[in-house]
């Protein structure tokens, strides 16, 4: 039923626009030419890839898959999405890409062919990555062994298989992540904000989405009951976390180990986030993330 409502909604929006123009409407902008001359740092890039969840989402370790060779399918109300192969394989991975292709994909969500990516890819959170961040990531991805396995095509029915529809989605919902430092806050807190609101994209799961699959800004961090695969994510609003017995110290520890203040151990997708992502971050970064999450101006509506 929700799926039908979504289809109807999308068709209504499209009805008001010119379909022909949409297909040709170019999206994304050319990254600066200086990008190619930047020297990437593999270690820093691998660290940022961990923080950004690349490895968690684009690997299917449960099924014995190689790192970054393609992730477990995401079953959503719009269809089933397969996080693609990001290895250096030239045919099935990113082996034939340029760094500009990569920059456009990560920061703008546009494929080398100019097609918009589905928002299951959390590129909106990476829009603020600097050219150096991109160069570092790109250098790190060059170290990934090629895996010659094709990624399955996304399995979406009409109208969601019409990628040009995503151009409308982008026009309606795409906005820059708020990762900018705030005056009067510590350096650590601002680093935490950069990670939480950007790279680590906590809000991707912990925020409700509307019928079109876009995050509802006023519901940021208030939790989400309809994640892919029928999963859910609790509120990570500071007040709710405090009521649940959390503080900055226990939160940082949980991001390292999965162990909660109650002695429980995370399961589901949060276990993946920790095991393949945050467990690899520095103590300073985990403390920074926790200090931002436990003390910010966001509140439930």
């Amino acid at each position, binding site marked *: 039923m929700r799926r039908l409502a979504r289809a109807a909604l999308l068709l209504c929006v499209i009805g008001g626009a010119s379909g022909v123009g949409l297909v040709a409407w170019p999206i994304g902008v050319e990254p600066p030419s200086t990008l190619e001359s930047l020297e990437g740092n593999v270690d820093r890039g*691998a660290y940022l890839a961990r923080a950004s969840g690349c*490895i968690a989402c684009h690997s299917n*370790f449960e099924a014995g898959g*190689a*790192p970054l060779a393609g992730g477990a399918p995401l079953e959503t109300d719009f269809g089933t999405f397969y996080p693609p192969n990001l290895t250096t394989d030239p045919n099935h991975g990113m082996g034939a890409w340029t760094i500009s292709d990569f920059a456009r994909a990560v920061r703008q969500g546009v494929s080398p062919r100019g097609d918009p990516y589905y928002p299951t890819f959390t590129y909106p959170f990476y829009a603020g990555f600097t050219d150096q961040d991109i160069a570092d990531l790109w250098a790190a991805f060059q170290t*990934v062994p090629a895996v010659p396995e094709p990624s399955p095509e996304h399995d979406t029915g009409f109208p969601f298989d019409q990628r040009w529809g995503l151009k409308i989605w982008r026009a309606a919902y795409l906005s820059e992540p708020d990762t900018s430092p705030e005056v009067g806050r510590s350096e650590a807190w601002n680093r935490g904000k950069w990670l939480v609101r950007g790279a680590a994209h906590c809000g991707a799961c912990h925020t409700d989405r509307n019928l079109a699959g876009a995050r509802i800004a006023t519901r940021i961090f208030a939790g989400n009951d309809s994640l892919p695969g029928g999963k*859910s994510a609790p509120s990570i609003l500071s007040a709710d976390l405090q009521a649940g017995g959390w503080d900055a110290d226990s939160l940082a520890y949980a991001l390292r180990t999965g162990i909660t203040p109650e002695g429980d*151990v995370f399961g589901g997708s949060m276990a993946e986030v920790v095991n393949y992502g945050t467990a690899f971050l520095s103590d300073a970064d985990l403390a920074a993330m926790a200090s931002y999450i436990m003390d910010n101006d966001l509140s439930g509506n």
Partner: protein
Amino acid sequence: MNARIWMTALVASSVGLAALAHSGATGVMKERMDAMGEMGDEMKRLAPMMRGQTDYDPDVVRSAADTMIGHAGTQMTELFPEGSNGMPSEALDAIWEDWEEFAALAEALRTSAEGMKLAADNGLAGPGEMPGGGMMGSGQGMMGTGKTMMGAGQGMMGGAPTQMMTTEMLAEMPVNAGFMAVTQTCSACHQKFRAEEN
């Protein structure tokens, strides 16, 4: 009013009361929830000790390990008869679809808890030896070398704990390692077999 109606009313009301008493969990469902709760209490005691926030006490480690060993292996799996989920259980159907792995993880809980128990007198790792005192992956090792390929070593992280360290290996290591192995086992099982709560 005949006896059958009285009987029905009585049964209905007692079922209702039981539901109120423990979120509706009865029988094996309640037993296993209690078992998980006991292990959670032990984890809650152990975590600050492993972090050096409370005084280290090997007796507490051994007693916690005994609690876990007592709930591991078949003691765990026999509390999950086929189809014993549904409200208010968080058990997923995957348990019975992949019983072999579920049982292997229940057994891994025993081997890792036994390793932690045997390591109790080894004490904690020195500062820096096991950063974070947490899971296997701890930033530095993976990032610092530069010669490590990105993503390499993930197989170990994602693999079943049965492929990880044995009781004998854990027994030789600082107690943090055993604690990590126990935590990894909890995590691996919850990741695949427990519904996410809200």
